[in-house]
């Protein structure tokens, strides 16, 4: 168990990268604040609750104030020296997500082209290979995961995922089956 309060509740501890994140939040909030007047409408003569711009302006103002206060708290934290170590490594770790986000988007763009079944099998297999599963058994399991997902969601639960454009080249009976179930 980490540090706790006198009553035993866990205490929130700021981590490396906290100040960098707090600064980015404040910058983005200030940007939105600067755009507030051009991106929302305030109609003269209307009650504030009926104003289209009331809630977005309230939210953005709240964001600016809280992001500012959070940054101040982060800078004033007594353990700041400890937290400034390893910021680079932490930010690098955040950036590593981008790789998997790109994998995800490749899956998204491949599906309408090669079809849901093929895209899922290729995605699950190649991502498993990428993250270190190189044995036949592990890769076989990954392919099975891809296939099972398609059978469960598209064939059985009939979720709306369009057929791949390659299905157009299939013979009629096969094409209908693939479009409906795979």
């Amino acid at each position, binding site marked *: 168990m980490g540090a706790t309060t006198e009553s035993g509740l866990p205490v929130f501890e700021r981590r490396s*990268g906290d100040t960098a994140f707090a600064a980015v939040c404040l910058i983005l909030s200030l940007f939105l604040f600067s755009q507030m007047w051009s991106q929302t409408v305030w109609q003269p003569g209307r009650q504030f609750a009926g104003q289209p711009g009331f*809630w977005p302006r309230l939210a953005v103002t709240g964001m600016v104030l809280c992001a500012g206060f959070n940054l101040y708290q982060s800078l004033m934290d007594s353990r700041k020296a400890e937290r400034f170590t390893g910021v680079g490594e932490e930010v690098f770790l955040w950036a590593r997500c981008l790789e998997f986000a790109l994998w995800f988007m490749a899956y998204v763009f491949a599906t309408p082209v090669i079809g849901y079944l093929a895209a899922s099998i290729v995605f699950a297999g190649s*991502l498993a290979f990428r*993250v270190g599963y190189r044995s036949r058994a592990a890769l076989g399991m990954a392919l099975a995961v891809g296939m099972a997902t398609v059978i469960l969601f598209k064939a059985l639960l009939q*979720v709306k995922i369009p057929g791949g454009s390659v299905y157009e080249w299939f013979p009629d009976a096969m094409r209908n089956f693939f479009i409906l179930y795979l």
Partner: protein
Amino acid sequence: MEALLSGFELIARIDVILALLVGSIGGVAIGAIPGVGPAVAIAILLPATFAFEPIVGLTLLLGIYGSSMYGGAIPAILINTPGTAANALTTYDGYPMAQSGQAHRALSLAYSASFFGGVFSILCLILMTPVLAAVAPLFGSREIFLAAVLGIVLVIVTHRGQAAIATFLICVGIWLNTIGLEPIQYTQRFTFGQSWLSSGINLIVVVLGLFAISQAYVLLIDKDDAPEPPKLSGSMFHGLTELFRHKRIALFSSGSGVIMGIIPGVGEFLAQFFSYSYAASTSKSPEKFGSGSPEGLVASEAANNAVPGAAMIPLLALGIPGEALTAMMLSVFYVHNVVPGPQLFENQPEFVIALYLGLLILNILVLIFLTFATGGILQVIRIPTRFLGVIVLTLSFVGVYSLRNSATDCALAAGFGIFGYILKRLNYPVVPIILGMVLGGIMETRLRTSMANVETPLDFINRPVAAIIFALIVFVLFFHLRSLLKGWRKKSGARNA
């Protein structure tokens, strides 16, 4: 009585029973996998349930919600890793019990405590239904607006030490909800001239990004780990009867779970914390807490399992979700044009009763399943971390893409996944964003409609329920500020000394 029979009729259907079976067994399995949890599963399954009737979709999601904490106790006890965040305190006493060769006793005690907590909260719900049905119509627009404000205030004050970032994230949620074409005056809000932003940002895209995709990133980037749980042998029945020796703890913990579940923004963790503290402070052998106390185990499990049933109260009675999972369930109601809130109790009491019965059956099913099949469930704990990441990312695609077949939605979800990953790395809460989006929408519409009948600010609280909720908001804020001031004085006193 008539509503009870109609409720029975509503769930006595093969599709509802199947949903209950799949939800309860699936929920146990999902809960048993450390790092997945019910929020990820519900987020992924949410769009698929839109095709079902509301009662089928909701029993499936409720099944996962209600049974995941049973499953979460298994890795907490056997490998010292809670399956869900709500099982964190179970590790304190469950794991030492397993280490001393009492894994069976610990597991069966956890199951029976969870069952007790679950059934207790459903009984409370059933007993409170006439009260809720009588009170709910007293809630008009201004009362619901004030209840949503109270929910937001409670979310902020329960994030002790993180109030600034929790408020920031709530504001982000409210802002996200306002993006797009506003429905009354048809003006654009924060669309920056982009047509794809005109239809707004879908709540489910944000939910999937923040819960499922971010968790996939966590699993894919973390060190690969495949835990090896110990082998189990013997009967589960022995520990089931042991609960009667700890009925005082079980009753208090379930009661605290119900109260904490009803209060928006509080949830399982505080419920089990208060129950655990109570059990430790009133025990004849407090020295055993943290090193294998059955009372500690009962307190933690009874409390966390009493929350799901109770969390349905604000959702069903007022249409106000208290935490992320009920916020996700709210979208199932909306998709089917079933509006939770005062009218639901008046117009469709059989629907409410059917949900309660579903929860009750779910607890019985899970207890029977776990009594005989815990050994089989242990297999899912062995799935390596990164492989789980591959599975979660593959499943997340179905969730997002099946909504509108939109690559933009997928890109947004992947982006929210990165945001969620950073929040998780920094130990920041994710839930306030979702609650901000849901409660922000409720506040906007309810304030607009209630202001039509209000001339002076005092008119806003001239009805008894509105005045009570307003007093509660002031009371919560007063005590929170007072405790902050006390803490600050103590700190500065220590610094001066």
